[in-house]
């Protein structure tokens, strides 16, 4: 099945999971998704769990505390959490299994935009984390948060790099004949 077809199936399944209110169906979806995850299934499972943990735990705990004061059905939390996990797991499994770039091929502009954005994100993200590491290494910060005077050099580097890279990408599109001279 093509990447585009997988993307379409994914969107349909996400819609179904949103419309159905049955814990067993959510569990079934999670099992099928894990099977589709292949060798990386446990890694994806762990990632999905970590990603939803903070928000879901805080909502769930708050609701449990809320139930001491207001009469509510706490079992609602089971469906809510299962649904959140099922959709998140499905999303990460899809992204792992398909070439998202290829799935966007139906639009030349979107496909190139995705590719260039991804490349720039990797470049700038590495720059940011290297900056944190540099400051920590020199004893200027203890954890990865910045003060105002440390923010300015960072923004200068990030914006300068981004503008230069965008200019290079623009030239590359001309060089390879995608943009007319």
């Amino acid at each position, binding site marked *: 099945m093509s990447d585009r077809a997988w993307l379409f199936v994914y969107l349909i399944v*996400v*819609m179904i999971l*949103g*419309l159905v*209110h049955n814990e067993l169906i959510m569990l079934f979806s999670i099992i099928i998704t894990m099977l589709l995850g292949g060798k990386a299934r446990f890694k994806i499972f762990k990632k999905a769990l970590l*990603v939803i943990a903070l928000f879901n735990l805080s*909502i769930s705990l*708050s*609701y449990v505390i*809320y139930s001491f004061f207001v009469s*509510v059905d706490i*079992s*609602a939390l089971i*469906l*809510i959490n299962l*649904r*959140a*996990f*099922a*959709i*998140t797991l499905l*999303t990460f499994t899809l*992204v792992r299994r398909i070439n*998202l770039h290829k799935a966007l091929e139906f639009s*030349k*502009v979107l496909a190139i*935009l995705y590719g*260039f*954005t991804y*490349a*720039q*994100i990797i*470049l*700038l*993200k590495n*720059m*940011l984390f290297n900056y944190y590491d540099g400051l920590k290494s020199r004893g200027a910060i203890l*954890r990865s*948060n*910045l*003060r*105002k005077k440390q*923010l*300015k050099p*960072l*923004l*200068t580097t*990030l*914006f*300068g790099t*981004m*503008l230069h*890279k*965008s*200019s290079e*990408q*623009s030239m590359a*599109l001309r060089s390879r004949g*995608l*943009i007319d001279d």
Partner: protein
Amino acid sequence: MHIPDGFISPQTYIPAIAISASLLALAYKKIDLDVEKIPLIAGVSAISFVMMLIAIPFPGGTTMHLSGIAIISLLFGPWIAFSSISLVLLIQALLFGEGGITSYPINIIAMAYVGSFSSYWFYKLFLTRSKNIAIFMAGWSSIFFPSIIIAIVLGIQPLVASDGATPLYFPFGLSVTLPSVVIPHIFIAIVEGLVTLSSVKFLKTHFRSVFSE
């Protein structure tokens, strides 16, 4: 502020898909997006993404993450900001699980659209009074108004999608979401406003050839 998956009902996200798709189509037209503009949008999207990773100290010993939406909107214009941040929200949802795919249209409307345009309009509104206040208010509004939208969208879930008294998506109503989401964001917005003020002024000076008015 991103809403994760599973907490928004189809009764909410399906109309939101229609609204956000229309806004994106309008943005496509306004920017006149073609192959030539791709590198700029890619760059702005990337820098928005990375700015959201930057952690700054918040009073009380905690940290908060910069949004950067107002910075982008003031430097590049609200339509480019809206398009770029929509792309960033999609990448965040698909690759990093920040924000869900079902809540994506809501996140676009709240953060990308309302965030970009409220900062632009508040800047214009306060410009006659003082440039510094205008930039600060742009930053402040880019956090405050989206938080209201998010609080409302979450808070109406028990009303629009419940099985009797049992909530099927987000379990808390407006009486909980409005104070618990909006009030903290009033203060987060102040920090964002201050960071926006110093960053925009600094970047406009440092990159005069790009951002000159």
